[in-house]
């Protein structure tokens, strides 16, 4: 196994642990009674970060250039933006 391969396996493991931690933060925020605009924005931001980690690190699109990664990034931020708009509308 090459040094770079070790690093990339380590990256995958760190990504997994980060995803677990971010999920627990989302859950804890709701359990601690955080509500309203800050919960919505915080939880959505965490969901987008987690989505980006899945796309780049787990799906392996980090180094895929031309079409697929930009499409999935666009998907993530469009869906996130529309959900935020619906939740924050007066």
């Amino acid at each position, binding site marked *: 196994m090459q040094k770079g391969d070790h690093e990339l396996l380590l990256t995958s493991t760190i990504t*997994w642990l980060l995803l677990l931690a971010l999920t627990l933060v989302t859950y804890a925020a709701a359990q601690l009674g955080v509500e309203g605009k800050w919960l919505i924005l915080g939880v959505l931001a965490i969901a987008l970060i987690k989505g980006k980690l899945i796309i780049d690190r787990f799906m392996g699109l980090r*180094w895929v250039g031309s079409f697929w990664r930009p499409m999935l990034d666009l998907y993530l931020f469009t869906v996130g933006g529309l959900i935020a708009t*619906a939740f924050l509308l007066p």
Partner: protein
Amino acid sequence: MGESDSPVLSQQKATLSMTVPDSNRTSCAITTDYPPGDVAIWIFILAELSVFALLFVVYAFTRHYNLELFDLHQQQLDSRSGLINTLTLITSSYFVVRAVAAIQYGNARLCSRWLWGAIALGLLFLLVKGVEYQHHFSLGIGLSTNLFYTFYISLTFFHFMHVIMGMVILTVVALKAGRGGYCATEHTGVETAASYWHMVDLVWLILFPLVYVMR
């Protein structure tokens, strides 16, 4: 869990081995136009993600016009089940990453083991979600109870069916890997199945906060 390679190197490995001496190999800053696995699965993934996106956005705007109803019934959901299922799917996705890495190193048996681990976690997801459905149904709650439950059951059950489909795909690939049907140079099937499973995970990562947490 033994020797393995990173999944992100699958497309570049052959080129690297021809052009760069092993001692000088690096693992970043190399781009490719092709995603891991069969391109057809990526077209399918985009189509599936579009359907889920539409459902998510319709849910969010419907909630805006029925705020009290949605907030009231959302609080009756068991968010611990949602949490357990999120942790379960993330971990199963990680197992699939390790399976791809194992086969890229030519270790088909290890690949198969990681895949069976991911399938077991998929079963756990279905079990937890099944218990949740059973609880709702025992209280007489169904699709027609109110608008919130129409969305909640439709969205989560649609995802539930995708988990089952993903598990079927992973099972076929795990069996083939166990028989030595993949190797370091030919493992498109493993990457294709992995891409689909990660899509199922990605959808849940939006669905969980949207339905269980945000209010």
